[in-house]
Structures are given as structure tokens and as C-alpha cells.
């Protein structure tokens, strides 16, 4: 059952270099009996099982962060085999689990399963942004590592900004505030605001979590300037536009420049047939299901607001291994996750 995982992890595919892994997964899904498998116009690997009008999208990502790790089994013949390799957890484990589970379930009357290995998730989610425009599924399952017996129901949003203060040159003995002093004061104001906002919110998922990612300053004969690079992990209640508005309010005469893609947080509805199917599936494998909310972002944040359908995030692996040099996955957990997902898909489409 682990051949898909081992083969996929063996195809090193940091963002921007996914094609070998994509071609491998397409061929693998064909060999597993999918009705169709192809590379879409964004470069994602796509496998289709079944022809029905109702659709379940299983969206994983096939790219990894850079940093190749030798693909290696530890304890292969023992009771707790482990597979090392870049992406074994984040997120080829979940993606391979999707491919294997759909093959295990096969075609179900009235339904279509679409397994997608999206590119570029670790950068700007180009693959998922394309996918979001191509489908309108009835249910969506996003692949990220959350352990085989947990269902993730929410991922925080994120927004980045450079905030720059400029001041005319002054003599250092003048007692006037410098640009550097002004941005330090601004950062303290940001922290003060978020501390106050977070005070009555015990869950990190509901808080605004700002981080100071960098500081730069400089001057010439006429002007001095200082810039803060501020990142923020955002709750559902504070979409990026509200955060930028608050930053502008706090910044006064400083210039706030948004950077990269801002992503809103997303929380999945708990009372859906999809969640119930997973609870049933986890119990069918002897687990006690748990829900989890994540402080990171995922392709869920890209597709869920567009599709507006019941969604969850699922996949084997411990996300504490994400992006680490010793990334590895427990193969027993992987196999349990395949069986959980198979049971969930069978119940959902019964």
C-alpha cells in the first residue's frame, strides 16, 4: 500500500521543479485504474475516478520546500517502519494517501472523485488558484499532515506589509524623534493593539499574531528612513483588508505597502456529511477522532472561499516535521489514513 508514497517522495520536487513528480503521479494513477489522469494547464497532476454528476475534489500539493533528504526506510521489517524523505509529511504523504484511497474505493455510481497534486503551494499557490477556477465540487478534501486520527477544520490567514517612516534630517542633539525611533514606537503600537485584541481570545486561531520579520534604515543628507517588515497571522474575524486598514490607522504618516498575496483565514463547518464521514472513518480504524485548528495557511484558504462547499483538511503525518531536515512519516499511520479516507469516501457516497 505504500508504493505510491515511496515513489512520489522519491521524485524530489521543490516548488518550480514539480514536473518529474507530476508525470510520475499521473502515470501512477493510470496504473491504479483511474478513468483518466493528465497534467492540467497549470501543470498540476490530475486523476479522475468515476463519471457521476456529484464531485469530490481531493486537493493535495506536490511541491515541497527545497532541501533534498535521502529517501530511506528505517525499521522496514520491524513493527514501526518509517520513511524519510523531503515531502514525506508536507505533503506527499497526504497526496499519496488520496491517490491510494480513491484507487481502493474505485468508481461509485453517481459520483466522481478528482485527485489533484497541485504545484507551487509552498510559494504562491499557483496550482490551487488555477484549480479554484476550474471546478465547483460538492465536497472538498485538502491534503495536509494532521495525523491519521484528526480532522483539521481551520487555517489562519496571513498578510505581509512593509511600513516605512520618513523624517527630515535633524541634528542628533536636537531631541527630535528619528525615523528609527518612530518605527520602534509604531511596532509597540501594533503589539499593544494586538495584545488588546487577543486578550479575551484564548485560542490562537482567533487571535491576530503579528511578527516583525525585518528592519531596515538609512539616510542621506536630507532625509532619514526606516522600514519594518511586518507579517501577521489572521483570524477569520479579521480579513486582510481590515488588518491593512488597522495598520494604516496605527501608522499615521508612515507608508504601508502590502506585500505578496494576502490570504483570509477559513474555518470549515463542523456539521456536514463530510465531517461525519471522517468521524466514522477514524472510528472504523480504532481511533478517537479529534478536530484541529492550524495557525498556518494551506490551499484550503484559496479554494474554500470560491467553492463554498463542505470541506476538511486531512492527511497522515506530524506537521511538526514540516520543512525540517529530518522529515519522516510513520508508515503504519499512513496505511491507517488510507483506510480512514477509504471508509469516509465510501460512507459519503453510499
Amino acid at each position, binding site marked *: 500500500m505504500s508504493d505510491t508514497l515511496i515513489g512520489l517522495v522519491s521524485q524530489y520536487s521543490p516548488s518550480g521543479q514539480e514536473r518529474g513528480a507530476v508525470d510520475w503521479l499521473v502515470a501512477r494513477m493510470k496504473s491504479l485504474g483511474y478513468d483518466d489522469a493528465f497534467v492540467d494547464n497549470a501543470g498540476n497532476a490530475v486523476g479522475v475516478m468515476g463519471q457521476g454528476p456529484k464531485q469530490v475534489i481531493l486537493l493535495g500539493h506536490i511541491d515541497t520546500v527545497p532541501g533534498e533528504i535521502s529517501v530511506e526506510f528505517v525499521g522496514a521489517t520491524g513493527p514501526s517502519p518509517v520513511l524519510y524523505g523531503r515531502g514525506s509529511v508536507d505533503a506527499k504523504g497526504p497526496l499519496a494517501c488520496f491517490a491510494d484511497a480513491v484507487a481502493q474505493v474505485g468508481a461509485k455510481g453517481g459520483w466522481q472523485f478528482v485527485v489533484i497534486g497541485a504545484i507551487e503551494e509552498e510559494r504562491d499557490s499557483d496550482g490551487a488558484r488555477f484549480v479554484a477556477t476550474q471546478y465547483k465540487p460538492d465536497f472538498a478534501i485538502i491534503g495536509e499532515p494532521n495525523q491519521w486520527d484528526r480532522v483539521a477544520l481551520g487555517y489562519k490567514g496571513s498578510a505581509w506589509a512593509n511600513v516605512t517612516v520618513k523624517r527630515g534630517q535633524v541634528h542628533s542633539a536636537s531631541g527630535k524623534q528619528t525615523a528609527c525611533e518612530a518605527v520602534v514606537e509604531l511596532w509597540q503600537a501594533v503589539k499593544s493593539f494586538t495584545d488588546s485584541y487577543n486578550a479575551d481570545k484564548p485560542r490562537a486561531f482567533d487571535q491576530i499574531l503579528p511578527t516583525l520579520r525585518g528592519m531596515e534604515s538609512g539616510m542621506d543628507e536630507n532625509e532619514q528612513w526606516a522600514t519594518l517588515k511586518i507579517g501577521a497571522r489572521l483570524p477569520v474575524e479579521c480579513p486582510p483588508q481590515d488588518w491593512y486598514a488597522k495598520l494604516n490607522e496605527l501608522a499615521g504618516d508612515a507608508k504601508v505597502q502590502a506585500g505578496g498575496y494576502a490570504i483570509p483565514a477559513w474555518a470549515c463547518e463542523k456539521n456536514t456529511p463530510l465531517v461525519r464521514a471522517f468521524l466514522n472513518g477514524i472510528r472504523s480504524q480504532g481511533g478517537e477522532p479529534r478536530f484541529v*485548528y492550524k495557525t498556518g495557511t494551506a490551499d484550503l484558504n484559496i479554494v474554500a472561499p470560491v467553492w463554498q462547499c463542505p470541506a476538511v483538511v486531512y492527511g497522515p503525518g506530524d506537521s511538526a516535521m514540516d520543512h525540517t531536515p529530518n522529515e519522516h512519516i510513520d508508515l503504519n499511520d499512513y496505511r491507517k489514513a488510507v483506510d480512514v479516507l477509504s471508509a469516509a469516501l465510501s460512507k459519503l457516497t453510499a
Partner: protein
Amino acid sequence: MSTVACPECEAEVTLDAGTEVGEIIVCSDCGVDLEVTSVDPAAVQLAPMEQEDWGE
């Protein structure tokens, strides 16, 4: 429609007609989330624990 005791506070919880197994309901007395594990006979248990994690 049937009733069952909340496992947290023992208050009477009503299951509406059409309630499904796996549905998450809220005890109106103590506010705890409950998962419906059976509708005939009615049974509930504390809903899956909610956790938080860093990372993707």
C-alpha cells in the same frame, strides 16, 4: 423527537426530528459540543476534542 442526558451537566438535551448520527449539537445548559452517536435509541457523547497546532 427524543431526549437524552448531557454527559457533561446531565441536562436534558432534545434531538430534533431528522437529526443524523455524527451531527454536532450544543447543550443549551452548559454549552458543550455533543456528537450524536445514535438516534434510535438516542445517544450522545462529548464531541471530538478541539486542538490547535502550529504549521500547515
